[in-house]
Protein backbone atom coordinates (compact mmCIF):
# COMPACT_ATOMS: atom_id res chain seq x y z
CA UNK A 1 0.00 0.00 0.00
CA UNK A 2 1.38 3.39 -0.98
CA UNK A 3 1.51 6.41 1.22
CA UNK A 4 -1.36 8.86 1.51
CA UNK A 5 -0.48 12.55 1.49
CA UNK A 6 -2.11 15.87 2.21
CA UNK A 7 -1.60 18.25 -0.71
CA UNK A 8 -3.82 21.20 0.13
CA UNK A 9 -5.30 22.86 3.19
CA UNK A 10 -7.61 25.81 3.73
CA UNK A 11 -9.87 27.39 6.26
CA UNK A 12 -12.21 30.32 6.48
CA UNK A 13 -11.84 32.87 9.23
CA UNK A 14 -13.67 31.56 12.29
CA UNK A 15 -16.18 34.26 13.22
CA UNK A 16 -19.07 34.86 15.61
CA UNK A 17 -21.54 35.35 12.78
CA UNK A 18 -20.85 34.50 9.17
CA UNK A 19 -22.89 36.77 6.90
CA UNK A 20 -23.86 34.07 4.43
CA UNK A 21 -25.01 30.50 3.87
CA UNK A 22 -23.13 27.26 4.46
CA UNK A 23 -22.28 26.84 0.77
CA UNK A 24 -20.66 30.29 0.67
CA UNK A 25 -18.84 29.69 3.93
CA UNK A 26 -17.46 26.38 2.62
CA UNK A 27 -16.34 28.05 -0.59
CA UNK A 28 -13.88 30.19 1.37
CA UNK A 29 -11.86 27.25 2.69
CA UNK A 30 -12.31 25.33 -0.58
CA UNK A 31 -10.75 28.19 -2.55
CA UNK A 32 -7.75 28.39 -0.20
CA UNK A 33 -7.16 24.63 -0.34
CA UNK A 34 -7.49 24.48 -4.14
CA UNK A 35 -5.02 27.33 -4.56
CA UNK A 36 -2.73 25.70 -2.04
CA UNK A 37 -2.80 22.39 -3.92
CA UNK A 38 -2.76 24.11 -7.33
CA UNK A 39 -5.24 21.63 -8.75
CA UNK A 40 -8.49 21.93 -10.68
CA UNK A 41 -12.01 20.77 -9.88
CA UNK A 42 -11.76 17.74 -12.14
CA UNK A 43 -8.75 16.50 -10.17
CA UNK A 44 -11.04 15.87 -7.19
CA UNK A 45 -12.45 12.34 -7.29
CA UNK A 46 -14.75 12.52 -4.26
CA UNK A 47 -15.66 14.73 -1.31
CA UNK A 48 -16.44 13.96 2.30
CA UNK A 49 -18.49 16.64 4.03
CA UNK A 50 -18.30 16.85 7.81
CA UNK A 51 -20.54 18.71 10.24
CA UNK A 52 -22.81 18.15 13.19
CA UNK A 53 -26.43 18.06 12.06
CA UNK A 54 -29.31 20.12 13.49
CA UNK A 55 -27.58 23.48 13.24
CA UNK A 56 -28.81 23.98 9.69
CA UNK A 57 -32.18 24.11 8.03
CA UNK A 58 -30.52 22.34 5.11
CA UNK A 59 -30.97 18.59 5.30
CA UNK A 60 -28.14 16.51 3.80
CA UNK A 61 -25.74 19.39 3.14
CA UNK A 62 -23.14 17.31 1.26
CA UNK A 63 -25.04 17.38 -2.03
CA UNK A 64 -25.70 21.11 -1.91
CA UNK A 65 -22.05 21.80 -1.16
CA UNK A 66 -20.79 19.49 -3.93
CA UNK A 67 -22.97 21.36 -6.42
CA UNK A 68 -21.84 24.82 -5.24
CA UNK A 69 -18.17 23.83 -5.46
CA UNK A 70 -18.67 22.54 -9.00
CA UNK A 71 -17.91 18.99 -7.95
CA UNK A 72 -20.70 17.15 -9.77
CA UNK A 73 -20.80 14.36 -10.84
CA UNK A 74 -18.19 13.13 -8.35
CA UNK A 75 -19.56 11.26 -5.32
CA UNK A 76 -19.90 12.96 -1.96
CA UNK A 77 -20.37 11.44 1.48
CA UNK A 78 -21.47 12.93 4.78
CA UNK A 79 -19.50 12.12 7.94
CA UNK A 80 -20.51 12.95 11.49
CA UNK A 81 -18.91 12.28 14.87
CA UNK A 82 -19.89 15.52 16.62
CA UNK A 83 -16.85 17.77 17.23
CA UNK A 84 -14.43 15.23 15.73
CA UNK A 85 -16.29 15.02 12.40
CA UNK A 86 -13.42 16.67 10.51
CA UNK A 87 -10.75 14.17 11.52
CA UNK A 88 -13.22 11.33 11.01
CA UNK A 89 -13.58 12.68 7.48
CA UNK A 90 -9.79 12.54 7.12
CA UNK A 91 -9.76 8.90 8.21
CA UNK A 92 -12.46 8.04 5.69
CA UNK A 93 -10.57 9.93 2.97
CA UNK A 94 -7.42 8.04 3.89
CA UNK A 95 -9.33 4.77 3.60
CA UNK A 96 -10.81 5.66 0.21
CA UNK A 97 -7.39 6.60 -1.15
CA UNK A 98 -5.44 3.77 0.50
CA UNK A 99 -7.93 1.25 -0.88
CA UNK A 100 -7.27 2.54 -4.38
CA UNK A 101 -10.92 3.46 -4.88
CA UNK A 102 -10.13 7.15 -5.40
CA UNK A 103 -6.88 9.06 -5.99
CA UNK A 104 -7.78 12.51 -4.66
CA UNK A 105 -10.39 13.08 -1.96
CA UNK A 106 -11.41 16.41 -0.42
CA UNK A 107 -12.50 16.65 3.23
CA UNK A 108 -14.77 19.62 3.91
CA UNK A 109 -15.82 20.63 7.42
CA UNK A 110 -18.21 23.40 8.31
CA UNK A 111 -20.59 24.74 10.91
CA UNK A 112 -22.82 27.75 11.20
CA UNK A 113 -23.76 27.98 14.87
CA UNK A 114 -24.77 31.64 15.02
CA UNK A 115 -28.29 30.99 13.77
CA UNK A 116 -29.09 29.55 17.21
CA UNK A 117 -29.00 31.21 20.63
CA UNK A 118 -26.29 30.00 22.97
CA UNK A 119 -28.88 28.16 25.12
CA UNK A 120 -30.31 26.43 22.03
CA UNK A 121 -26.81 25.49 20.98
CA UNK A 122 -26.07 24.05 24.44
CA UNK A 123 -29.29 22.06 24.23
CA UNK A 124 -28.26 20.56 20.90
CA UNK A 125 -24.75 19.82 22.09
CA UNK A 126 -26.23 18.35 25.28
CA UNK A 127 -28.25 15.98 23.10
CA UNK A 128 -24.93 14.72 21.77
CA UNK A 129 -24.83 12.95 25.13
CA UNK A 130 -27.35 10.32 26.29
CA UNK A 131 -30.83 11.74 25.64
CA UNK A 132 -32.58 9.01 27.59
CA UNK A 133 -30.58 9.01 30.79
CA UNK A 134 -28.60 12.26 31.00
CA UNK A 135 -30.16 15.09 28.99
CA UNK A 136 -33.39 15.13 31.12
CA UNK A 137 -31.20 16.40 34.00
CA UNK A 138 -30.21 19.50 32.04
CA UNK A 139 -26.70 18.56 30.94
CA UNK A 140 -24.40 20.46 28.62
CA UNK A 141 -20.82 20.07 27.41
CA UNK A 142 -19.19 22.53 29.86
CA UNK A 143 -20.80 20.69 32.79
CA UNK A 144 -19.55 17.28 31.67
CA UNK A 145 -16.02 18.59 31.24
CA UNK A 146 -16.39 20.36 34.59
CA UNK A 147 -17.01 16.95 36.17
CA UNK A 148 -13.81 15.69 34.56
CA UNK A 149 -12.03 18.79 35.88
CA UNK A 150 -13.22 18.28 39.44
CA UNK A 151 -12.21 14.63 39.38
CA UNK A 152 -8.77 15.58 38.03
CA UNK A 153 -8.34 18.25 40.70
CA UNK A 154 -9.37 15.88 43.48
CA UNK A 155 -7.04 13.10 42.38
CA UNK A 156 -3.99 15.04 41.20
CA UNK A 157 -4.12 18.45 42.85
CA UNK A 158 -4.64 20.29 39.59
CA UNK A 159 -5.81 23.83 40.38
CA UNK A 160 -7.99 26.51 38.84
CA UNK A 161 -4.80 28.45 38.21
CA UNK A 162 -3.43 25.53 36.17
CA UNK A 163 -6.56 25.67 34.04
CA UNK A 164 -6.12 29.44 33.70
CA UNK A 165 -2.54 28.89 32.51
CA UNK A 166 -3.88 26.85 29.58
CA UNK A 167 -6.12 29.76 28.60
CA UNK A 168 -3.25 32.22 29.04
CA UNK A 169 -1.19 30.15 26.59
CA UNK A 170 -4.10 30.16 24.12
CA UNK A 171 -4.35 33.91 24.64
CA UNK A 172 -0.67 34.25 23.84
CA UNK A 173 -1.14 32.81 20.35
CA UNK A 174 -4.72 33.83 19.51
CA UNK A 175 -3.63 37.41 18.72
CA UNK A 176 -1.21 35.99 16.11
CA UNK A 177 -3.93 34.04 14.29
CA UNK A 178 -5.93 36.15 11.82
CA UNK A 179 -8.53 33.36 11.59
CA UNK A 180 -9.27 33.27 15.34
CA UNK A 181 -12.51 34.55 16.89
CA UNK A 182 -10.82 35.70 20.09
CA UNK A 183 -7.67 37.69 19.35
CA UNK A 184 -7.09 39.55 22.60
CA UNK A 185 -4.26 38.53 24.92
CA UNK A 186 -5.33 36.78 28.13
CA UNK A 187 -3.26 37.25 31.28
CA UNK A 188 -3.16 35.42 34.59
CA UNK A 189 -3.95 38.75 36.29
CA UNK A 190 -7.32 38.80 34.50
CA UNK A 191 -8.11 35.40 36.01
CA UNK A 192 -7.13 36.72 39.45
CA UNK A 193 -9.71 39.51 39.18
CA UNK A 194 -13.06 38.04 40.30
CA UNK A 195 -14.82 40.82 38.39
CA UNK A 196 -13.31 39.69 35.08
CA UNK A 197 -15.69 38.03 32.62
CA UNK A 198 -13.16 35.21 32.41
CA UNK A 199 -14.05 34.27 35.99
CA UNK A 200 -17.81 34.27 35.62
CA UNK A 201 -19.03 30.79 36.53
CA UNK A 202 -20.48 28.55 33.82
CA UNK A 203 -20.44 25.08 35.33
CA UNK A 204 -18.26 24.91 38.42
CA UNK A 205 -15.34 24.57 38.53
CA UNK A 206 -15.20 25.80 34.92
CA UNK A 207 -15.48 29.53 34.23
CA UNK A 208 -16.13 31.45 31.03
CA UNK A 209 -12.38 31.67 30.51
CA UNK A 210 -12.13 27.88 30.56
CA UNK A 211 -14.54 27.46 27.65
CA UNK A 212 -14.10 27.90 23.93
CA UNK A 213 -16.67 29.93 22.02
CA UNK A 214 -19.18 28.84 19.41
CA UNK A 215 -18.22 30.08 15.96
CA UNK A 216 -19.05 29.89 12.28
CA UNK A 217 -16.34 28.52 10.05
CA UNK A 218 -15.20 26.02 7.46
CA UNK A 219 -12.09 24.00 6.67
CA UNK A 220 -10.85 21.99 3.72
CA UNK A 221 -8.17 19.31 3.43
CA UNK A 222 -7.18 17.61 0.16
CA UNK A 223 -5.80 14.08 0.39
CA UNK A 224 -4.04 12.22 -2.44
CA UNK A 225 -2.40 8.90 -3.23
CA UNK A 226 1.40 8.88 -3.22
CA UNK A 227 1.89 9.26 -6.99
CA UNK A 228 -0.46 12.19 -7.28
CA UNK A 229 0.76 13.77 -4.06
CA UNK A 230 4.30 13.80 -5.44
CA UNK A 231 3.10 15.04 -8.83
CA UNK A 232 0.93 17.86 -7.48
CA UNK A 233 2.83 18.99 -4.41
CA UNK A 234 6.38 20.12 -3.77
CA UNK A 235 5.92 19.48 -0.06
CA UNK A 236 3.42 16.69 0.50
CA UNK A 237 2.77 15.92 4.14
CA UNK A 238 2.13 12.22 4.79
CA UNK A 239 -0.47 10.62 6.99
CA UNK A 240 1.74 8.39 9.15
CA UNK A 241 -0.68 7.16 11.75
CA UNK A 242 -4.44 7.41 12.15
CA UNK A 243 -6.26 6.06 15.18
CA UNK A 244 -9.91 6.21 16.16
CA UNK A 245 -11.84 5.01 19.18
CA UNK A 246 -15.08 5.31 21.09
CA UNK A 247 -16.02 5.34 24.78
CA UNK A 248 -19.36 5.08 26.59
CA UNK A 249 -21.63 8.08 26.00
CA UNK A 250 -23.09 7.99 29.49
CA UNK A 251 -20.78 9.12 32.27
CA UNK A 252 -22.04 6.12 34.22
CA UNK A 253 -20.21 3.87 31.77
CA UNK A 254 -16.80 5.44 32.34
CA UNK A 255 -14.12 3.82 34.46
CA UNK A 256 -12.44 7.12 35.30
CA UNK A 257 -13.11 10.81 34.80
CA UNK A 258 -9.48 11.95 35.05
CA UNK A 259 -8.90 11.39 31.34
CA UNK A 260 -10.57 10.27 28.13
CA UNK A 261 -10.29 6.56 27.33
CA UNK A 262 -10.97 7.20 23.63
CA UNK A 263 -7.87 9.41 23.43
CA UNK A 264 -5.66 6.76 25.02
CA UNK A 265 -6.93 4.07 22.64
CA UNK A 266 -6.78 6.23 19.49
CA UNK A 267 -3.31 7.52 20.40
CA UNK A 268 -2.01 3.99 20.91
CA UNK A 269 -3.24 3.00 17.46
CA UNK A 270 -1.73 6.11 15.84
CA UNK A 271 1.67 5.80 17.53
CA UNK A 272 1.92 2.10 16.61
CA UNK A 273 0.97 2.75 12.99
CA UNK A 274 3.45 5.63 12.70
CA UNK A 275 6.14 3.69 14.57
CA UNK A 276 6.88 6.59 16.90
CA UNK A 277 6.49 7.47 20.57
CA UNK A 278 5.05 10.60 22.19
CA UNK A 279 8.60 11.96 22.58
CA UNK A 280 8.95 12.02 18.78
CA UNK A 281 6.09 14.49 18.33
CA UNK A 282 7.42 17.96 17.49
CA UNK A 283 4.17 19.91 17.41
CA UNK A 284 0.61 19.07 18.39
CA UNK A 285 -2.93 20.33 18.05
CA UNK A 286 -5.15 18.98 20.81
CA UNK A 287 -8.88 19.36 21.34
CA UNK A 288 -9.00 22.18 23.91
CA UNK A 289 -12.74 22.82 23.86
CA UNK A 290 -12.16 23.45 27.58
CA UNK A 291 -8.94 24.13 29.45
CA UNK A 292 -9.21 20.83 31.33
CA UNK A 293 -9.51 19.02 28.00
CA UNK A 294 -6.03 20.22 27.02
CA UNK A 295 -4.50 19.14 30.34
CA UNK A 296 -6.11 15.69 30.07
CA UNK A 297 -4.89 15.43 26.47
CA UNK A 298 -1.27 16.01 27.60
CA UNK A 299 -1.62 12.95 29.80
CA UNK A 300 -3.77 10.76 27.57
CA UNK A 301 -1.44 11.36 24.60
CA UNK A 302 1.63 10.51 26.68
CA UNK A 303 3.22 13.98 26.68
CA UNK A 304 3.00 13.81 30.48
CA UNK A 305 2.39 11.03 32.99
CA UNK A 306 -1.11 10.84 34.51
CA UNK A 307 -1.55 13.78 36.88
CA UNK A 308 1.48 15.62 35.53
CA UNK A 309 -0.24 17.63 32.80
CA UNK A 310 -0.23 20.60 35.16
CA UNK A 311 3.57 20.48 35.39
CA UNK A 312 3.84 20.74 31.61
CA UNK A 313 1.82 23.97 31.48
CA UNK A 314 3.45 25.40 34.65
CA UNK A 315 6.88 24.94 33.09
CA UNK A 316 5.69 26.33 29.74
CA UNK A 317 6.84 23.21 27.91
CA UNK A 318 3.80 23.44 25.63
CA UNK A 319 4.68 26.93 24.42
CA UNK A 320 6.37 27.36 21.03
CA UNK A 321 9.83 27.28 22.59
CA UNK A 322 9.04 24.29 24.82
CA UNK A 323 9.70 20.58 24.38
CA UNK A 324 6.24 19.85 22.99
CA UNK A 325 4.45 22.90 21.55
CA UNK A 326 0.67 22.44 21.78
CA UNK A 327 -2.07 24.56 20.21
CA UNK A 328 0.26 27.38 19.29
CA UNK A 329 -2.28 28.56 16.74
CA UNK A 330 -4.39 29.64 19.72
CA UNK A 331 -6.34 26.39 19.95
CA UNK A 332 -10.11 26.12 20.07
CA UNK A 333 -10.00 28.45 23.08
CA UNK A 334 -8.86 31.32 20.83
CA UNK A 335 -10.00 30.20 17.40
CA UNK A 336 -13.52 29.26 18.42
CA UNK A 337 -15.07 25.88 17.73
CA UNK A 338 -17.28 25.63 14.63
CA UNK A 339 -17.85 21.94 15.26
CA UNK A 340 -17.49 20.33 11.85
CA UNK A 341 -14.71 22.72 10.78
CA UNK A 342 -12.48 22.23 13.83
CA UNK A 343 -10.66 19.03 12.85
CA UNK A 344 -9.73 20.42 9.44
CA UNK A 345 -8.40 23.61 11.02
CA UNK A 346 -6.22 21.56 13.38
CA UNK A 347 -4.93 19.50 10.44
CA UNK A 348 -4.21 22.67 8.48
CA UNK A 349 -2.13 24.12 11.31
CA UNK A 350 0.00 20.98 11.58
CA UNK A 351 0.44 20.70 7.79
CA UNK A 352 1.68 24.31 7.64
CA UNK A 353 4.09 23.60 10.52
CA UNK A 354 5.49 20.50 8.80
CA UNK A 355 5.96 22.43 5.56
CA UNK A 356 7.76 25.23 7.42
CA UNK A 357 5.04 27.70 6.42
CA UNK A 358 3.62 28.55 9.85
CA UNK A 359 5.06 32.06 10.01
CA UNK A 360 5.38 33.60 13.47
CA UNK A 361 4.42 30.37 15.22
CA UNK A 362 6.75 28.11 13.22
CA UNK A 363 8.57 25.53 15.33
CA UNK A 364 12.08 24.50 14.28
CA UNK A 365 12.27 21.71 11.68
CA UNK A 366 9.39 19.54 12.85
CA UNK A 367 9.35 15.95 11.54
CA UNK A 368 6.13 14.73 13.17
CA UNK A 369 2.94 16.57 14.10
CA UNK A 370 -0.06 15.20 15.96
CA UNK A 371 -3.74 16.10 15.78
CA UNK A 372 -6.12 15.13 18.61
CA UNK A 373 -9.78 15.73 17.84
CA UNK A 374 -12.57 14.68 20.22
CA UNK A 375 -16.29 14.26 19.62
CA UNK A 376 -18.71 14.81 22.50
CA UNK A 377 -17.18 14.35 25.93
CA UNK A 378 -14.71 11.76 24.71
CA UNK A 379 -17.42 9.72 23.08
CA UNK A 380 -15.37 9.75 19.88
CA UNK A 381 -11.60 10.21 19.69
CA UNK A 382 -9.34 10.57 16.67
CA UNK A 383 -5.57 10.90 16.83
CA UNK A 384 -3.71 11.54 13.60
CA UNK A 385 0.05 11.71 13.11
CA UNK A 386 1.44 13.55 10.12
CA UNK A 387 5.04 13.59 8.99
CA UNK A 388 7.41 14.73 6.31
CA UNK A 389 9.37 12.08 4.39
Amino acid at each position, binding site marked *: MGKVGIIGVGQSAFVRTYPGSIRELVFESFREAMKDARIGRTDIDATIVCSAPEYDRQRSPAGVIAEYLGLNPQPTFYAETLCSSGSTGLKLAYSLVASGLHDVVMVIGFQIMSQLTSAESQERMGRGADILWESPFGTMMPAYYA*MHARAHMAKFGTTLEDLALVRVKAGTYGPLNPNAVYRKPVTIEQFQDPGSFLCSPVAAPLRTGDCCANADGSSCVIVACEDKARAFSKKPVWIKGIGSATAPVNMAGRDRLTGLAATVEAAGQAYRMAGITPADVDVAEVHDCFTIAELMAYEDLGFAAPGEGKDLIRSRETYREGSIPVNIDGGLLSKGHPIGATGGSQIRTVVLQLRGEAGQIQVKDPAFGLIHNIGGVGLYGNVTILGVD
Partner: protein
Amino acid sequence: MAKNELDARFAEFGTVSFASVTQVNDFIGYLEEGKLMGTRCKTCAKSFFPPRAHCYQCLAGDMEWFEIAGKGELVSYSTLQYAPAGFTEEVPYTIALVDYGEYKVFGRIDKSVPETELSVGTKMKAAVGRTPNGRLTYAFKKA
Protein backbone atom coordinates in the same frame (compact mmCIF):
# COMPACT_ATOMS: atom_id res chain seq x y z
CA MET B 1 -53.75 1.41 29.08
CA ALA B 2 -55.35 -0.02 25.95
CA LYS B 3 -53.42 -2.94 24.54
CA ASN B 4 -52.53 -1.37 21.21
CA GLU B 5 -51.62 2.02 22.71
CA LEU B 6 -47.89 2.86 22.60
CA ASP B 7 -46.29 2.90 26.05
CA ALA B 8 -44.94 6.45 26.13
CA ARG B 9 -44.34 6.75 29.86
CA PHE B 10 -40.71 7.79 29.43
CA ALA B 11 -41.98 11.24 28.40
CA GLU B 12 -42.61 11.78 32.13
CA PHE B 13 -38.91 11.55 33.07
CA GLY B 14 -36.91 14.62 34.07
CA THR B 15 -37.42 18.34 33.64
CA VAL B 16 -37.45 17.90 29.87
CA SER B 17 -37.66 14.45 28.34
CA PHE B 18 -36.28 13.95 24.86
CA ALA B 19 -37.78 10.50 24.30
CA SER B 20 -41.03 8.81 25.20
CA VAL B 21 -40.79 5.18 24.18
CA THR B 22 -38.23 2.64 25.34
CA GLN B 23 -38.45 -1.03 26.26
CA VAL B 24 -37.51 -0.19 29.82
CA ASN B 25 -40.48 2.10 30.47
CA ASP B 26 -41.27 0.17 33.64
CA PHE B 27 -38.47 2.34 35.06
CA ILE B 28 -41.09 5.10 35.14
CA GLY B 29 -43.64 2.85 36.84
CA TYR B 30 -41.08 2.06 39.56
CA LEU B 31 -40.27 5.78 40.00
CA GLU B 32 -43.99 6.35 40.60
CA GLU B 33 -43.72 3.78 43.41
CA GLY B 34 -40.73 5.66 44.81
CA LYS B 35 -38.16 3.13 43.61
CA LEU B 36 -35.03 3.76 41.52
CA MET B 37 -34.34 0.59 39.55
CA GLY B 38 -31.71 -0.88 37.24
CA THR B 39 -31.81 -4.10 35.26
CA ARG B 40 -29.87 -7.35 35.71
CA CYS B 41 -29.35 -10.02 33.08
CA LYS B 42 -31.01 -13.24 34.22
CA THR B 43 -28.53 -15.26 32.15
CA CYS B 44 -25.17 -13.80 33.19
CA ALA B 45 -26.20 -11.70 36.22
CA LYS B 46 -24.54 -8.53 34.89
CA SER B 47 -26.13 -5.44 36.47
CA PHE B 48 -26.90 -2.33 34.45
CA PHE B 49 -27.59 1.26 35.28
CA PRO B 50 -29.03 2.96 33.37
CA PRO B 51 -31.38 0.03 32.82
CA ARG B 52 -31.26 -1.73 29.47
CA ALA B 53 -33.53 -4.17 27.68
CA HIS B 54 -30.71 -6.30 26.30
CA CYS B 55 -27.44 -7.73 27.61
CA TYR B 56 -24.54 -7.15 25.23
CA GLN B 57 -22.46 -9.68 27.10
CA CYS B 58 -24.60 -12.77 26.43
CA LEU B 59 -27.02 -11.31 23.84
CA ALA B 60 -29.98 -12.22 26.02
CA GLY B 61 -33.08 -10.09 26.41
CA ASP B 62 -34.28 -11.61 29.62
CA MET B 63 -33.75 -9.00 32.31
CA GLU B 64 -34.98 -8.54 35.85
CA TRP B 65 -35.30 -5.29 37.79
CA PHE B 66 -33.31 -4.56 40.94
CA GLU B 67 -33.43 -1.55 43.23
CA ILE B 68 -30.58 0.95 43.47
CA ALA B 69 -30.26 0.88 47.23
CA GLY B 70 -27.60 1.70 49.77
CA LYS B 71 -24.75 4.15 49.54
CA GLY B 72 -22.50 5.17 46.70
CA GLU B 73 -19.46 7.43 46.47
CA LEU B 74 -19.55 10.78 44.73
CA VAL B 75 -17.21 10.49 41.72
CA SER B 76 -17.64 14.08 40.59
CA TYR B 77 -20.19 16.87 40.29
CA SER B 78 -20.71 20.26 38.70
CA THR B 79 -23.03 23.13 39.57
CA LEU B 80 -24.45 24.84 36.52
CA GLN B 81 -24.87 28.61 36.57
CA TYR B 82 -25.92 28.54 32.97
CA ALA B 83 -28.29 26.01 31.46
CA PRO B 84 -29.40 24.65 28.13
CA ALA B 85 -32.77 25.66 26.67
CA GLY B 86 -35.59 24.17 28.75
CA PHE B 87 -33.66 24.26 32.04
CA THR B 88 -32.80 27.94 32.46
CA GLU B 89 -35.39 28.49 35.21
CA GLU B 90 -33.77 25.83 37.40
CA VAL B 91 -30.24 27.23 37.72
CA PRO B 92 -28.26 26.80 39.80
CA TYR B 93 -28.44 23.01 39.92
CA THR B 94 -25.82 20.32 40.41
CA ILE B 95 -25.30 17.23 38.28
CA ALA B 96 -23.33 14.31 39.65
CA LEU B 97 -22.00 10.81 39.14
CA VAL B 98 -22.20 8.33 42.01
CA ASP B 99 -20.30 5.03 42.09
CA TYR B 100 -22.11 2.08 43.67
CA GLY B 101 -19.29 -0.37 42.93
CA GLU B 102 -20.98 -2.68 40.46
CA TYR B 103 -22.45 0.25 38.52
CA LYS B 104 -22.55 4.04 38.54
CA VAL B 105 -25.56 6.36 38.51
CA PHE B 106 -25.75 9.77 36.86
CA GLY B 107 -28.25 12.31 38.18
CA ARG B 108 -28.70 15.51 40.12
CA ILE B 109 -27.79 16.43 43.68
CA ASP B 110 -30.92 17.21 45.71
CA LYS B 111 -31.51 20.94 46.18
CA SER B 112 -31.48 20.45 49.97
CA VAL B 113 -27.77 19.55 49.98
CA PRO B 114 -25.49 22.63 50.18
CA GLU B 115 -22.60 22.45 47.74
CA THR B 116 -20.22 23.19 50.62
CA GLU B 117 -21.02 19.74 52.04
CA LEU B 118 -19.98 17.96 48.86
CA SER B 119 -16.59 16.64 47.83
CA VAL B 120 -15.30 13.81 45.71
CA GLY B 121 -15.78 10.66 47.76
CA THR B 122 -18.80 11.89 49.79
CA LYS B 123 -21.22 9.04 50.54
CA MET B 124 -24.53 9.58 48.77
CA LYS B 125 -27.86 7.81 48.36
CA ALA B 126 -30.47 8.21 45.65
CA ALA B 127 -34.01 9.36 46.43
CA VAL B 128 -36.95 9.43 44.04
CA GLY B 129 -38.75 12.77 43.81
CA ARG B 130 -40.22 15.39 41.54
CA THR B 131 -38.60 18.10 39.46
CA PRO B 132 -39.53 21.76 40.11
CA ASN B 133 -42.02 21.44 37.24
CA GLY B 134 -43.59 18.40 38.92
CA ARG B 135 -42.19 15.57 36.80
CA LEU B 136 -40.63 12.29 37.89
CA THR B 137 -36.95 12.18 38.70
CA TYR B 138 -34.41 11.10 41.31
CA ALA B 139 -31.70 13.01 43.12
CA PHE B 140 -28.79 12.26 45.44
CA LYS B 141 -28.77 13.15 49.12
CA LYS B 142 -25.98 12.67 51.62
CA ALA B 143 -26.05 9.14 53.05
